[in-house]
């Protein structure tokens, strides 16, 4: 008897895939934790500044769910998987809306996990497609206890809730090249401000003047407090998080038209965001940037290394199971923090790496046909092969004359 058996419906597969691809934006690995009543996926990014936890309710989310356990894993089973291989299993073969009717759509997916003495430690996913094809994927995993970020809700006295859809649309106003999002409130004008900026310092020198023009757009969005539910925030408190993380979260938050709730306390302390869907609860704990780092932005002469805003690591807790294997003990021992750790250790200041914003997809002609498409499509106006720098040919270029002399 396998330790864990569950079946995902067509929609379940899509939601599962969305969850994994959201996590993939933070880390390459994903931890799976199964209990009788729920399945949990968690991940922690490499700089330990962002933690994601998706809980899937066993009776509500899955078409079938059976946690058997065994002598070793009576209460819960956990393992760590390589997200990329998981993603490819659940990826629908055809992209876009066509997939809805496409015959290669995954109709259902049966997942079995087995482990134990004398058994092969494998996650086996059997995919049944609409067109009758079935595929079986066998993935190996590592037995590793998940690391959970600790978040103390009693400490987080600041909170607000807003429609995730509204927040998502607001993010569309932020341009490329920005790194940090400052969320602050003003009691006087009764607004919550979302300010995007970057601390990246342009190289000074001969071209200092031109560098000024290379700064990204500085965007501020003021949202009336009345549009929030349950706003309770200390006046003028600035809390700063990574735009990239926030974008990734809101991208995923599209699965719900419901509310997104946040809790936070002070700079350099964690912030929690959460929203729920049908049978799924999504929680994120992000470490916020320290105030000192944020202040440097205000100075006229920012430090050259200010681009790397330091964010302390999240505190983590790890449950020790009574019946963990040797392997697990090793894994736990090598875990970043001992599980019993109660008091937060002095936060190290890892270099919080900010990856560059993805560039917009290269513009190209939709079709190679000579026939001309709809004029409404703005992409059609994009130049052919942009971005490729032109090389000066051997041909002499005719220069424009910018003089008043008549040319004949």
């Amino acid at each position, binding site marked *: 008897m396998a330790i864990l058996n569950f079946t995902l419906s067509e929609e379940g597969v899509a939601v599962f895939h969305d969850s994994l691809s959201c996590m993939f934006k933070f880390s390459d690995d994903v931890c799976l934790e199964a209990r009788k009543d729920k399945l949990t996926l968690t991940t922690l990014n490499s700089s330990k500044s962002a933690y994601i936890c998706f809980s899937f309710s066993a009776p509500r989310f899955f078409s079938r769910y059976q946690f058997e356990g065994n002598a070793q894993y009576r209460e819960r089973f956990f393992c760590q998987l390589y997200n990329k291989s998981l993603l490819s299993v659940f990826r629908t073969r055809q992209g876009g809306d066509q997939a809805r009717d496409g015959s290669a759509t995954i109709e259902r997916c049966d997942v079995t996990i087995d482990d134990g003495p004398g058994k092969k430690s494998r996650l086996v996913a059997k995919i049944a497609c609409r067109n009758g094809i079935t595929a079986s994927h066998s993935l190996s995993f590592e037995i590793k206890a998940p690391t959970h970020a600790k978040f103390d809700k009693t400490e987080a006295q600041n909170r607000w809730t807003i429609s995730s859809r509204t927040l998502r649309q607001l993010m569309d106003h932020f*341009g490329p090249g920005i790194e940090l999002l400052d969320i602050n409130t003003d009691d006087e004008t009764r607004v919550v401000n979302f300010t995007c900026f970057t601390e990246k310092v342009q190289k000074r020198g001969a071209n200092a003047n*031109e560098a*000024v023009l290379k700064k990204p757009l*500085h*965007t501020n969005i*003021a949202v009336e407090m009345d549009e929030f539910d349950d706003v309770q925030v200390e006046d003028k408190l600035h809390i700063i998080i990574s735009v990239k993380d926030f974008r990734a979260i809101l991208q995923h938050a599209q699965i719900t038209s419901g509310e997104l709730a946040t809790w936070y306390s002070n700079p350099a302390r964690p912030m929690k965001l959460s929203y729920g869907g049908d049978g799924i609860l999504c929680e994120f704990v992000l470490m916020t940037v320290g105030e000192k780092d944020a202040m440097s932005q205000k100075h006229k002469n920012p430090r050259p290394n200010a681009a790397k805003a330091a964010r302390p690591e999240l505190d983590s807790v790890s449950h020790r199971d009574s019946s963990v294997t040797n392997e697990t003990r090793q894994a736990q021992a090598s875990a970043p923090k001992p599980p019993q750790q109660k008091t937060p250790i002095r936060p190290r200041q890892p270099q919080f790496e900010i990856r560059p914003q993805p560039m917009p997809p290269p513009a190209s002609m939709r079709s190679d046909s000579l026939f001309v498409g709809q004029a409404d499509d703005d992409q059609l*106006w994009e130049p052919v092969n942009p971005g490729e720098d032109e090389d000066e040919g051997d*041909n002499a270029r005719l220069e*424009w004359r910018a003089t008043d002399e008549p040319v004949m």
Partner: protein
Amino acid sequence: MRFRTDLKNIRTFSKLTAALNSLERIAWLRLDDDTVRFTVIPDTGSQVWASLSAELIFDNYHLQSAEANNTINLELPLGPLQRALKSASGSNQANLRLTKRDGVPMLSMTIHTMTKDGAQDTRSGGGGQFGGGGGRGHARVSGHGYDEDLDPFDDAAELFPQESLELTMKREREKVITQDIPVRVLHPDSVELIMQPKVREPDVYIQLPPLLQLKAISDRFTKLALTTATTGGTRAAGASQNPKLELSANMHGSLRLRLVTETLDITSVWDKLENPELDPAQLIVPMNEHPSTIFKDAGANKWATVRVDGKDWSRVLSVGRLEGRVIACFTDEHALILYVYVPHFDDSSSEDVVTYYVTSYST
């Protein structure tokens, strides 16, 4: 130095910015009491002079400087401007002003806007699956009545989840978005020497066919040239160079686009195009001595030809998004100028022209 204005015709402004941005990242903006002029001069590639009447894109336009006509010269990045205008499209109201933040000059765009589907925003978890907002709204309002008296529609009431009045009363609010575009204020002396190019009287005037069509075919030619350049092993030396397209026009309504490589020679011809009449009052030479008259008299086989860089030409043609009439002026073996007339949606009589000085190459 002051500059403050409300924005109008944001769509046109945004399309112009996009067209300029495909050629160069940074533009020189010259503002004075009547005119707004964008100039883009790439290191290599075609240059653009877009001269617009202020009322085309601005409203309540206030300008003040120590220069004549209150001229202000700015240098600004087009990407951020385009991004800011995208935020402003569909807004209730937007304005632009020159300001300073942390001592750095900025063009600050303030936008009052709503989120798109705020009105239909169902505030229950997973509520998105249920149909339109209208039907749900009705169920909510009548919901309370069903609770009190036993209603024959009682069963139906369960189908429509009831929400508290407080939540449904929560209205979508206007958001205020501020987009700060970094700018550089230019000293008048530094721009004094930048002059619009002067060219001799053209040989051929012709109205171009729909630009989307012309662009699609030009791009196709350019791609073909790139493909043949990379597949032909012997052309390794030529592969590094951008393909050149040959453009010709005559005074009898024809435009010809041609690509010649070692392995292929393709031509597209448009006929029955218009050769617009010149206004004799504007000419410095008598009409019968004008080069275009000479070309016209020489017949349909007399072509004025220029060679353009395929990729640069593609960037130039992106001005088609402005949906204006485009007149091309050919000076045989010498130059190509495009005049793009910006369409007006109100009945102002002012003429707004975007002039492209297309980079051309000798054989």
